C-alpha cells in the first residue's frame, strides 16, 4: 500500500496510507496533548478542550458542526488519553472535501464562554457517569497509586473540583500552547488521492501557526503499594494490579505486548485458566500500555467478594510463576498467532487502520506498515521475553482493591 508523507510550511505533518480497495476514507488529527501535559490545577483540560472543539468555530456553532457532519453520513468522534487527543472521521470518498473542511474548521474552535459553561455541565455528568462504574474508578485510582506524583498518574477526566473551577481563559492559553500546527499530525487512510489530501490540508490548515510543545518525559517506576477502598453497595470486588513495562520508544514493546496476551488475554491465557475457567472471577484481563518514557501493564479482575482473597493469591502465584519460568515455546507461538490475526482483521476497517497509523507516527515519527508490524511480532524470541521480564519484573506490582471488603491483605 502506498505511503505518503509531507510537512507543510507551517510545520503540520501530513501522512497517508492509501488503498483503492476500501469503501471509505478516514482521517484524523493526532494532537500531542493529554493528561500528562496538564499542570495539576488544570487536570481534565485536554479532555474538556476535546469537547469544546465540537462546540464550533467562527464559521459554525455546535449544532451546525453536528448537522453538517451527519448530513454527509460521516462517522466522527474524538478521544483523549494520557498523551494524545485525537479527532477522527470516516466517510464515503465522495464526501472527502466537505468532511475535511469541517474537521479542520473545528480544530480552530471559538471557545465561547457560554458554550464553555454549558459543556462544563456535560463533563461533570461524564465524571459522575464513570464514578458509577467500579472498573473505571478502580482503574483511575490504581493508576494514581502506581505512578504517584509522576504526570502519568493523573486522571484524564479530571475531578469535579478541577473541572468545576476551570476558566475559559485558561483553556484558550492551553489551546495556544498545544494545538499549534507543529504539535499535531494529520493522518489519512483508505480511498483517497494524495494530491487532493495535500491540497485540502494546505487550503484548510495552511494558515495554522504554532510550534511543537515540549513534553516532560521522565522515567517512572511504580509504587508497588497495596490499597483497598470501600464501596459498600458494590456486588462485586474489583481488583486492579499495575506492573512496570517498557516505554513506547523501546522495541521491547513487542515482547511486552505478547507477555500481556500470554498472561491475560480474555481467552486461553494463564489468568483465563486460573480465574475464569474455574469460575473464580467473571473478568480477568491484562492490558499493556506503553507511554513516552514509561510503560505499564494493567490487570483487571472482577469477582465475588468472597473469592477476592483467594484470587489475589492466585494472581500472585500466576505472576510469580511467569516471572520465574517465562512462557513455554507453545504459549509464545499461540500469542503471536492470536495477536497477528487480530491485527489483520482490525486493519481491514479504514478507521482502525487510521488509528494505528496516526498513533504510531505521532509517537515514533515513523511509518509502520502492517507487514513490518507482523514481522516485528513474529521475530520475538523466548530470550527477548526473558530479557523484558528481567528488566520489568511483573511481580511485585501495585495492587488496588475496590468493593465491599475492607479486610483484604496484600498477597505476600
Amino acid at each position, binding site marked *: 500500500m502506498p505511503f505518503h508523507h509531507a510537512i507543510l510550511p507551517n510545520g503540520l505533518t501530513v501522512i497517508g496510507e492509501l488503498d*483503492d*480497495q*476500501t*469503501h*471509505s476514507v478516514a482521517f484524523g488529527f493526532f494532537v500531542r496533548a493529554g493528561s500528562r501535559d496538564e499542570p495539576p490545577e488544570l487536570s481534565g483540560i485536554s479532555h474538556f478542550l476535546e469537547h469544546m472543539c*465540537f462546540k464550533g468555530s467562527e464559521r459554525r456553532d*455546535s*449544532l451546525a458542526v*453536528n*448537522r453538517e*457532519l*451527519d*448530513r*454527509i*453520513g460521516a462517522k*466522527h468522534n474524538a478521544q483523549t488519553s494520557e498523551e494524545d487527543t485525537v479527532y477522527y472521521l*470516516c*466517510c*464515503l470518498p465522495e464526501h472527502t472535501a466537505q468532511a475535511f473542511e469541517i474537521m479542520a474548521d473545528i480544530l480552530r474552535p471559538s471557545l465561547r464562554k457560554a458554550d464553555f*459553561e*454549558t*459543556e*462544563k*455541565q*456535560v*463533563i461533570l*455528568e461524564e465524571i*459522575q*457517569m464513570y*464514578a*458509577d*462504574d*467500579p472498573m473505571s474508578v478502580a482503574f483511575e485510582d490504581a493508576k494514581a497509586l502506581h505512578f504517584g506524583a509522576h504526570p502519568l498518574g493523573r486522571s484524564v477526566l479530571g475531578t469535579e473540583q478541577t473541572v468545576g473551577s476551570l476558566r475559559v481563559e485558561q483553556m484558550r492559553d492551553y489551546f495556544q500552547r498545544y494545538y499549534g500546527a507543529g504539535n499535531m499530525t494529520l493522518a489519512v487512510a483508505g480511498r483517497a488521492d494524495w494530491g487532493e489530501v495535500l491540497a485540502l490540508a494546505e487550503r484548510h490548515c495552511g494558515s495554522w501557526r504554532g510550534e511543537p510543545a515540549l513534553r516532560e518525559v521522565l522515567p517512572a517506576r511504580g509504587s508497588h503499594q497495596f490499597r483497598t477502598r470501600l464501596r459498600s*453497595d*458494590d*456486588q*462485586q470486588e474489583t481488583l486492579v494490579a499495575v506492573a512496570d513495562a517498557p516505554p513506547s520508544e523501546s522495541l521491547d514493546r513487542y515482547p511486552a505486548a505478547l507477555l500481556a496476551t500470554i498472561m491475560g488475554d480474555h*481467552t*486461553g491465557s494463564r489468568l*483465563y485458566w486460573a480465574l475464569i*475457567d*474455574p*469460575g*473464580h*472471577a*467473571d473478568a480477568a484481563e491484562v492490558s499493556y500500555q506503553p507511554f513516552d518514557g514509561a510503560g505499564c501493564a494493567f490487570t483487571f479482575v*472482577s*469477582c*465475588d467478594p468472597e473469592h477476592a482473597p483467594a484470587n489475589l493469591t492466585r494472581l500472585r502465584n500466576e505472576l510469580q510463576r511467569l516471572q520465574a519460568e517465562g512462557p513455554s515455546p507453545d504459549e509464545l507461538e*499461540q500469542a503471536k*498467532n*492470536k495477536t*497477528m*490475526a*487480530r491485527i*489483520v*482483521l482490525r486493519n*481491514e*476497517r*479504514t478507521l482502525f487502520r487510521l488509528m494505528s497509523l496516526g498513533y504510531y507516527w505521532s509517537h515514533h515519527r515513523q511509518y509502520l506498515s502492517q507487514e513490518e508490524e507482523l514481522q516485528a511480532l513474529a521475530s520475538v524470541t523466548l530470550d527477548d521475553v526473558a530479557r523484558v521480564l528481567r528488566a520489568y519484573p511483573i511481580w511485585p506490582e501495585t495492587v488496588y482493591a475496590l468493593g465491599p471488603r475492607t479486610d483484604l491483605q496484600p498477597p505476600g
Partner: protein
Amino acid sequence: MSTTESYQHRFPNGLTVVGERMPSVKSAAFSLLLPAGAIYDPPERLGTAGVLAEWMLRGAGDRDSRSLIEALDRLGATYRVSAQSVHLGLTAATLGRHLIAVLRILVDVVRRPHLRDDDFESVRALAAQSLRSLEDDPGAKLMVELRRRHFRDPWGRHPLGTPEGVAALTPESVRQFHGAHVHSSGAILAAAGDIDWTALVDAVAELLGDAPPCPEPTLRPGPAGPARDHIAKATEQVQIGLALPMVPLPHPDSYQARAAAAILGGYSSARLFTEVREKRGLCYSVAAAYESFRDEAALVCHAGTSSDRAQQTLDVMLAELNRLCDRGVAADELETMRAGLKSSWIMQQESSLARSSQIASDLYYLGRVRTLDEISAALDALTPQSVSRYCGSLRRDQMTILSLGPRALVCPE
C-alpha cells in the same frame, strides 16, 4: 473496486446457508444462529441458554477445554459463543483460508459438547458473578430492566437470566435444553468475506446437513409491565429509560420506524442529543434506538444524568417524543438519516464479521438478504409525510418509563 457476490443454499432439514464474497478483504467470518436463545429458557430456570453457551466451550468432540481453545487460537480465530434473546449464536472471524477449519471446531461445540458434570459448577459460578456485575453497571441494568418490563415475556428476558433461575439449574436440566433446542434445522449460517462458497457448502453438508428436521417450538406470550417503575439505588446518576411499541422488522413500515428512531436519537445532530445535551448540557449520554424481534419491536430511549437534573431530562425527552409523534419529521432530517444509514451500510463492506452478522439477521427476519440497492431504494422512497404519518400512529399510551437511582421521578400517567 470489484463487487460482492452472494449465494444461498437451503438443506432439506431446514438449515439455510448464505454467503457473500467480499473481494476487498482477506478475512472471512461466519455467524451461526440456532433457535436456542433465552426466550426458550424454562420459566423456572432463567439463564439456561446463557449457562449452556459457556458450558459448551468446555470441551467438545475429541478436544478437551484447553485443546479446544488452543486450536481456535492457533487458527487466529476471534470467536464468541453466546446466548442472545432468540438465538444461541456462534460467531467467528479469521483469515479466509482458515474459515472451514474454525467452522469444524465450532460445529463440534454445537453438536458434540462434553457438558461434563465436573465443569458445571464453575460455569454456574461464572453466570452468577456476571449477574452481580450487571448490578454494578447502572446503565446496562436499566436497559435490561426496561426491556423486561416493556416486551412481553419471553422477549423481555435477558440471556444472563436471574439469580434464582441460575441457582435452580442442574446439569441434567441444561443438557435436556441442549438436546431439545440446539439442532441445525431452523438454524442459519451466514458467511462473508474471502470465502470459497462451494467448499463451504460441501463442509456444511458434511457437518450439519444430516441433522434431522425439528419443528420450531411455539411460544406463549406472557404479560409485560409495570409501565411505570423506579429501581432505588444509591448511584451518582439517575438512569432513565423509555420504550414504546413500533412495528417489527418484517413489517413494510419498519423503514419508517427505523427512520423515526434515528431522527429522534441516532446520532449527534438528532433531536435528543441536540435538545438534552447540546442546548441544555443535561447529560453526557442520551440516545434512542430501534430494537426489533420478529413479532414485536420498540423505540428505546436512554439517558443518564445527575439526580437534581433528572426530572428536567425526563421532561425534555418526553417533550421531544411528543413533538415527534404530533408534528412528525422534516425533509432535511430525513435526508440526514438516509446519509447516515447508507454510509453505515457501505462501510459494513469493510468488515467480514459485521457483514456476516447482518446477512444472518436479514435471513432470520426477512427470509432473504437485502442488497444495498434495495435498501437505498426503500430509504429513498420515504417521505416526510409517510414518516410523520407513522410517528403519529405511535402508541404513547403503551409507553414504559423506568428510572434507576437515588430518587423516583414524576412520570405522566
